[in-house]
């Protein structure tokens, strides 16, 4: 058999053997058997010298061609084998992706905190800055300076917790609204314009029920200057409602009564649960009360240090718990101050 015929036989045998190989060990052995320095092709190539010199170049080319074919076949087979091995390893490493993950332990902010932040952020964009004032106040600041004298029927609007004080001393109470902060803020700024938002805890002498709490938060805002009008109040509150409830939210302004504002107004937004059709939450009215507001009463402006003939201003107030309850469909206000993590964990 000629060298060339032997080479062809080796090529055929090598390719046939390669077909059956499935492990990386076996393919290594194959490689040294055929392509190694001591492999079949190398051994045969040593016999090239026995050929007549005119046949050698063609035979050499033939050898190179066979090597190239076997190299290529080897590479392909090796890739197949390593892929299969990887596939098998992946299979062994696979997990049930529906098993629960490792949850990082992360706490939640109180829902009232979140809503308070939303409210203050919206008003901050309109130039209102946060101003805080005490929760324990004098009767004068909570009522008198806000145009609610003693024995005024409007006092019925605020059931009040009083602090025990010495006989004859000034009456001290738990603020029933954040409105005393109006006076503090105005007095700190007058005669400069003021635009602040007053968040904080308030208290009412009220039996605790699913809808009423003795403690709650309120956010109040005031703007006082030389050119502040009722129309500005409307624009500000509509801007707020659209930020909180979405652009195009329908609003309704109703005359109302607060002793410290005149004119007074109640802002309703269209019930977002029933889109105004009427439901249990909006008591079939199609509207939800969002904020009580009005132009600051001349007497209150004067008490805050502004001349009511020159300055005007507006004030508004709202309850974060109520907004939170509507937002999340909470039907019992008593959870808010329970510290119960089954409640607190429900909010993002």
């Amino acid at each position: 058999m000629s060298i060339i015929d032997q080479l062809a036989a080796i090529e055929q045998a090598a390719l046939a053997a390669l077909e059956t190989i499935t492990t990386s060990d076996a393919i290594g052995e194959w490689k040294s058997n055929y392509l190694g320095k001591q492999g079949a092709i190398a051994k045969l190539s040593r016999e090239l010298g026995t050929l007549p010199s005119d046949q050698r170049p063609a035979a050499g080319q033939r050898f190179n061609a066979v090597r190239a074919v076997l190299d290529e076949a080897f590479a392909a087979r090796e890739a197949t084998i390593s892929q299969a091995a990887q596939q098998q390893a992946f299979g062994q490493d696979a997990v049930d992706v529906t098993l629960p993950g490792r949850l990082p332990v992360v706490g939640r902010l109180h829902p009232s905190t979140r809503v308070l932040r939303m409210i203050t952020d919206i008003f901050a964009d309109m130039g209102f800055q946060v101003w805080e004032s005490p929760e324990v106040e004098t009767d004068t600041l909570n009522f008198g300076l806000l145009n609610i004298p003693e024995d005024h029927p409007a006092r019925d609007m605020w059931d009040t917790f009083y602090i025990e004080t010495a006989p004859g001393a000034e009456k001290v109470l738990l603020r029933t609204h954040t409105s005393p902060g109006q006076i503090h803020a105005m007095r700190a700024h007058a005669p400069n314009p003021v635009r602040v938002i007053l968040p904080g805890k308030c208290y009412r002498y009220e039996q605790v029920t699913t809808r009423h709490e003795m403690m709650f938060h309120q956010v109040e805002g005031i703007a006082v200057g030389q050119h502040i009008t009722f129309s500005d109040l409307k624009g500000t509150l509509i801007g707020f409602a659209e930020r909180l409830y979405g652009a195009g939210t329908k609003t309704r302004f109703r005359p109302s009564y607060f002793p410290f504002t005149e004119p007074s107004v109640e802002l309703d937004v269209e019930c977002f649960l029933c889109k105004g059709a009427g439901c249990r939450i909006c008591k079939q009215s199609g509207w939800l009360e969002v904020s009580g507001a009005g132009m600051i009463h001349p007497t209150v402006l004067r008490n805050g240090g502004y001349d009511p003939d020159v300055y005007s201003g507006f004030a508004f107030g709202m309850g974060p718990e109520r907004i939170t309850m509507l937002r999340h469909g909470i039907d019992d206000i008593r959870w808010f101050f329970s510290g119960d993590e089954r409640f607190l964990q429900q909010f993002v």
Partner: protein
Amino acid sequence: MRIPLSWLREYVDVTIPVAELAERLTRSGLEVDSIEHIGGTQAELPWDPALVLVCNILEVTQHPNADRLVLATVEYAPGNTHTVVTGAPNLYEYKGLGRLTHPLKSVFAREGAVLFDGHVAEKVKVKLKGKPVRGVMSDAMLCSEKELGLSEEHEGILILPADAPVGMSLVEYIGDTVVDIDVLPNMARTLSLVGMAREIAALTNQTLRLPNPAVATSGADANATFKVTIATPELCPRFTASVVRNVTIKPSPFWMQRRLIMAGMRPINNIVDISNYVMLELGTPNHTFDADCVAEAHIVVRNAHADEQLKTLDGRTHTLNPSHLLVCDTTKALSVAGVMGGESSEVSDRTQNVLVEAAVWEPTIIRRMSTAFKLRSEASKRFERGVDTEMLDLAQRRLCQLLHDYADGVVAPGMVDVRSVPVRDVTITLTNAEVKRILGLDFTAAQISDLLTPLGFGCTVNTSTSLEVTVPSYRRDVSHTADLCEEVARMFGYDNLPSTIMADELPTQRTNLALEREHFVRDVLSGAGLNEAITYSLTSLASAANLDPAEADATNYLHLANPLSSEREYMRRAILPTLLESAAVNLRERGSTRLFEVGRVYHRRDDAILPAEPLRVAIVMAGQRTNASWHDAVPETVDFFDIKGVVELLCERLQITSIRIAPSDADYLQPGRAAQLIAHTGAGEVVIGHFGELHPDARERFAMPTVRVAVAEFALDTLLELANVPRYTSISRYPASSQDLALVAPVTVSAETIAASIRKYAGAALSSIELFDVYTGANLGEGMRSLAYRLTFRSSERTLGDDEITKLRAKIIRGVEHETGAKMRA
């Protein structure tokens, strides 16, 4: 205020559907709370106009087979009769009288009519079906008030007035709509049908019709027989009295009873009902005395004597003092002025002659008395908010006319009228500039006049920019231009006013660093796995004592004068007690708790009437460190080092450096697992608060006996003042080299002492020090401990050589051994 539309229509035409009327009222400040339909198609129980009819009972006979039943022959349409089986006791008296000679009107319901079941307490609708009752076919019935949904009354059938038209559908006869309106405190003028009608007339461009009763009088003039003396003119601006003789006490007419019931009042008898009717109609509370009980026919309005006693109509006896105001005769008190009548002059079945009082009282005195006596009545509600002095004449005429028509009274001519305060017109000058300044919209004086006039304001337009506004007597709530601006806006429609962006200068914007940091603390703590709680600021001494019995000293606390319950009686001085109460619930319900609260506490000050309200942060952690899961079926439970980790994280995030942690001897913490956070401030060292594991005794008191409870409470204001902005340190480009050191020292040498010593001798080349092992074992010897540190060295300027590191290590060991007595572990 409940407004039956049929009654309202006496004073104003209602030209729009009730739903639209309700919306207009609400948008004008008269918020409609509910609309109640009686009998009509929208009613809870609609009365079928073909099946529920006015009928006349012609004859009542005994049921042949049942003692307690009767058969009534009724005419339910002219010429049509039907026999009805009924057990109504109020028909027994007509049994066997044959054909009745007088009309006896009732309500006839035919088969198919839907009514309420009269025999069950709830409102259950049933459809009337024919069935034999004791052998007599029953396919129709006579209805009780309960079956018609008019009241709970089911003792007998409803008897209608004799003139009720036979065959008319009941819904046409007495069907109605009642609009219930929440009246704001400054809208007392609408606490009457006429007042409400005036608003509606103005809102819907209709005309108000005031009643104008004609009264026939005879006998002696009231002024000749009765005398009125007002001893306290400042408390009684006007007092009027009429005299009506020979009255008959009996039920008031059906229509009046219906109106009172629909308006929410219970009919009593004609005298009481007439009084209430006029109060509801005109907004003038009034009182009827038995005229023969007034000694010397002389009414005296005066302050009470000290300890004077008066028994009021509700049967209670009040002990009075000179701050109270009474209507008296010359010998005794007759009533608490404007609040409630007294028993001694109460109109009774024997009453023949009545004295009718209609007066106006100073609102404050009424409010004080009704609060003091806990007597909030429809009358006091109106007096507190202000009653129109100029309505008394009409009220007296109306009272006399009704007493004449429905109590057979003989009205004396004349009216005793004492005015203590002369009528004073209030006139306000209003400019369109002022309206624009407040409302933001331009109106001409004429436009303003057009808006205010329908409400009864007298407007005189001076120029195109100014007008004089005279305030009517029923609008004493209006005293300032701002009040008029509200009326202009209300009549124009709040929703019709423009919405604008504030054009006024933006006030100087200042950062509120403390608040920003407070929010940052909330974010850090929630990021650390703690849930934010907000607990009550109000608590009890018992709760405070659960944490620390020494805290139960009432003198340190603000105490409520009027607590709602003993659990919420004192203003908290610390957050932990209420937070621990929540934690105990969570531990019970969920097996773990991780809570924090940021809030104020309230500290009494001897030198001020108001307390200090420092801001605190409190943390409670207990139970499993993480949630149990298939990754970790039994997580470890929280201990001291969990809360310490949170404290360290908080200080690191706030970049607080001037702080140290030392052992604490706080009584509520377990000794040996208690620490305090101490700040170095300009004023020396200040304790910011304590943290550690709750003392087992305190755990027991909070009902958390079985697991360690880690707690912390810090003065947050102080902590926030110590916060800093992080400073960047450059990051070295050169490689690091690390060395492990295990040092053995007595456990009494604190880890911080050894770490501080290592830092001191390592110098600037040390980039980090990490304690990776703490070991105590018999092989180290009694009371000894091994602390293993990994030190990482790195220079920002060059690569540190091995020789350098070896030398540095030897230096550190020498120094630490010398300074702390620690030895390298063998």
